[in-house]
């Protein structure tokens, strides 16, 4: 990022942007991190908050083992140290949606430390982003400021929902890198099946720490923290806005103030929430209601055994095993569901990985995106798509007819074979029959035949089209080409 190309007319200084992200991933546990209440989204307000979540007098937290397993999984997946001993701490502050007056989190000794992740850069290169730590904590409830006539409603259903806060090193140098990192973490937590990644429901959100410094400077500039960004687009826009704001501020003689800022998606700007002076003293101390979390080697090993093939490894395998390009392998491994889908298609077809890749990335994803669906809701499953591709491979239908069959499958008209049968789409491969049709086409179009023979080669396509039209697209294209060429030459 530079200051010079901006319309403001500044020319001199080259700026470097420094970004670190704190990602909050809601863990896909059925019950809360310290109580047995359900974590299901969308229930009526305050119907999923038990005595523990309400912070009633006398209640005590009991750690959800599943949350620990999930955090350990994440740690192992990013090559981090999974702490043999970690400690839950209380973060003390008053807010109506924080029932106990403190949030149980991890502070000095988190469960995961010192990991890293590779991101791909736009120039085709890659970059390692350090993961400082990831810690377990409970979410707060929600304050609802609308619909209460100037009052605030409190919904404690979310209170106690398990979160993994993933803190990066300040290793990112542009909003694009920050988004690439966030997407990579997003894909990873879904691969690991530890977070549903649903950003609209707030299951995956982030805070961005942003600062700028003159290029070549090693000390960091003063940073601001932008809170609660819940889409990739907002992350990118908020960071870009904030970078421009900071550069403009410094270049016009001002100073960046360390503060927390909110991104207003409607206005596309960030604005101050509270400054460092107003920052709260959270009075962290170890939670005396919870013993230190001790994990032994056997536990960590057992978690390691459950790790699935991770995105980078899968991509490399798709390239070597299926001969796919880096781009295709990257697209197909972007999510675990898609990769599984693709592999099922290949298995059903029994080969032809490139043809399968083209179909999955082309027709299938095109239709899925067009319909605004997620892959699991797609009406054509991998076996069905494989069954269709098989009919291309064995020459029952052409690729073009296959697209029509796919549309019929998408519309719920049944399996590929049934549709081919019902619609009579089976390819004509009888040479004599094709020859007869070609003879008829040539006889019907004497003028074009004359022109072709006079050297207008382009008309070859015209004859193919006429044959296909006559056979409703069912003639085998290779045979048509071959016989037609012979006849035209003759």
């Amino acid at each position, binding site marked *: 990022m530079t200051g010079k190309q901006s319309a403001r007319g500044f020319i001199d200084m080259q700026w470097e942007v420094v970004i670190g992200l704190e990602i909050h991933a809601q863990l896909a546990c059925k019950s809360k991190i310290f109580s047995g209440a359900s974590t299901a989204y969308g229930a009526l307000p305050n119907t999923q908050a038990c005595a523990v979540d309400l*912070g*009633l*007098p*006398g209640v*005590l*937290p009991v750690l959800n083992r599943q949350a620990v397993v999930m955090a350990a999984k994440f740690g192992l997946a990013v090559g981090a140290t999974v702490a043999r001993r970690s400690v839950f701490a209380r973060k*003390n502050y008053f807010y109506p949606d924080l029932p106990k007056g403190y949030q149980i989190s991890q502070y000095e000794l988190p469960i995961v430390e010192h990991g890293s992740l590779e991101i791909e850069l736009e120039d085709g290169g890659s970059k390692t982003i350090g993961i400082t730590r990831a810690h377990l904590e409970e979410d707060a409830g929600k304050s609802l400021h609308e619909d209460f006539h100037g009052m605030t409603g409190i919904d404690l259903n979310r209170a106690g929902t398990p979160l993994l806060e993933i803190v990066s090193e300040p290793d990112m140098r542009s909003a694009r890198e920050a988004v690439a990192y966030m997407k990579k973490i997003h894909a990873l937590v879904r691969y690991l099946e530890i977070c549903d990644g649903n950003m609209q429901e707030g299951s995956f959100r982030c805070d961005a720490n942003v600062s700028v410094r003159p290029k070549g400077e090693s000390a960091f500039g003063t940073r601001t923290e932008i809170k609660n960004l819940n889409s990739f687009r907002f992350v990118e826009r908020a960071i870009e806005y904030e970078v421009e704001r900071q550069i403009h501020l410094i270049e016009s003689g001002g100073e960046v103030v360390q503060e927390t800022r909110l991104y207003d998606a409607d206005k596309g700007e960030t604005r101050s929430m509270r400054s460092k002076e107003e920052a709260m003293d959270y009075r962290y*101390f170890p939670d005396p209601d919870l*013993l230190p979390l001790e994990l032994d080697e056997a536990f960590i090993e057992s978690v390691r055994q459950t790790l699935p093939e991770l995105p980078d490894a899968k991509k490399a395998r798709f390239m070597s095993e299926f001969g796919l390009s880096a781009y295709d392998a990257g697209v197909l491994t972007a999510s675990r569901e898609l990769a599984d889908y693709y592999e099922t298609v290949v298995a059903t077809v029994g080969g032809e990985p490139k043809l399968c890749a083209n179909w999955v990335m082309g027709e299938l994803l095109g239709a899925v995106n067009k319909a605004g669906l997620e892959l699991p809701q797609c009406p054509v499953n991998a076996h069905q798509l494989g069954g269709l591709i098989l009919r291309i491979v064995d020459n029952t239908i052409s690729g073009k007819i296959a697209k029509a069959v796919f549309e019929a499958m998408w519309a719920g008209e049944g399996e590929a074979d049934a549709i081919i049968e019902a619609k009579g789409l089976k390819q004509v491969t009888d040479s004599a029959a094709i020859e007869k049709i070609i003879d008829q086409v040539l006889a019907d179009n004497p003028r074009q035949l004359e022109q072709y023979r006079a050297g207008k080669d382009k008309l070859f396509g015209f004859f193919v089209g006429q044959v296909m039209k006559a056979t409703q697209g069912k003639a085998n294209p290779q045979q048509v080409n071959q016989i037609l060429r012979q006849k035209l030459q003759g």
Partner: protein
Amino acid sequence: MFEKTLSELSQALHAKKISSVELTQAYLDRIERLGEQSNSFITVTVEQALVQARAADQRIAAGEAGPLTGIPLAHKDIFCTDGVRTSCASRMLDNFIAPYDATVVERLAAAGMVMLGKTNMDEFAMGSSNETSYYGPVRNPWDPERVPGGSSGGSAAAVAARLTPAATGTDTGGSIRQPAALCGITGLKPTYGRVSRYGMIAFASSLDQAGPMTRSAEDAALLLQAMAGFDPRDSTSIDRPVPDYRASLEHSLAGLKIGLPREYFDQGLDAATAAVIEAALDQYRRLGAETVDISLPNSGLSVPAYYVIAPSECSSNLSRYDGVRFGYRCEAPRDLEDLYKRSRGEGFGAEVKRRIMVGTYALSAGYYDAYYIKAQKIRQLISADFRRAFEQVDVIMGPATPSTAFRLGEKTDDPVSMYLSDIYTIAVNLAGLPGMSIPAGFVDGLPVGLQLIGGYFQEARLLNVAHQYQQVTDWHRRAPGEA
């Protein structure tokens, strides 16, 4: 009847000499008649008690009764009781009705015990005299001008005044042992983690522990038997088998090694109290025990360390009382900040506010290392002192308190002098050890408590040592006159 021990009452109930309903009614009548003198009850649950008593009688008739079935008891008002007000003696919770039972309450109810009511205490268990209660001070049955001790003052006074055969208490820095000593009853604070804290309103979570308050060691053994045990709802409770506490009561004390920490017999100890303790130790020597002088060199640091750790934890534990969801809420708050400030300012008493402020300060950025971390280090040193001591001796003995019960109002304006009344009991909480106070004699008509300290999970040993003493003395049978 009011002089009977729990096992005697149990025998009478099983022999159908008396029904639980009759027994319960007798105690309810006695509370009605005498309860106001000591102000030891905040709530008396007459109807529920009789319902429980009838159910107990049915269990007895059906032959499904245990040793505690049908016997009345009182719970300190710090234990949540389903459908019954649980106030913690605070204006903050004057209107609070818990929707669930504490594990201790649940277990004792399951054993068939009948709850007479909820006893008075220092507000949120913060105090050593029971004078910080929103419901007024408890008076010592031995002298109504004197305090019963605290914070479990209502339980201690109720047991001493024979208003209940037994009661539950909690002990964070001496809150079972100190009032037991000042009221002349037997009180046991178990090892930290032995009894579930679930549903017991937290003061200082790493120190709080519930225990029995009874008239004899044998009764304490019976009650602890039902209270103790692992609870999956309390992460700090310990999954370890509960021994049969009565099985070892009769073991001989011949060869028992008793450690006497010189720090517990220094100039801070009242001379007459010291003489009573000496006499008790002589009694133990006659029972075959041997006394050994030991040192707990960091004892002097226990009160300062405690008054950093306990307020720190309390400042956080009491944050939930914010006027938002339950408890006291100020009238017509102007905004959120006003709601917090006035609800907490009006809902809490002076001592609670003092401790919240001290704890908030100790945990603040810039002070945390100097106070909280340092106090935790002292805690380690104190534990190490005890560990070394228990390499030499089986139990440690000394006074439970520096003097007998003081006068109401005597120390209310001097918090430090009040805090020092727990000087002999606090170290035990910091180390998480079990400790007991048993009646050992009188000074000017006021009871003196002998403190017994054991190694981790040595409750059975402490009960045995206390019981043997009670077999050859009758201090624990003395009752205050019905003034």
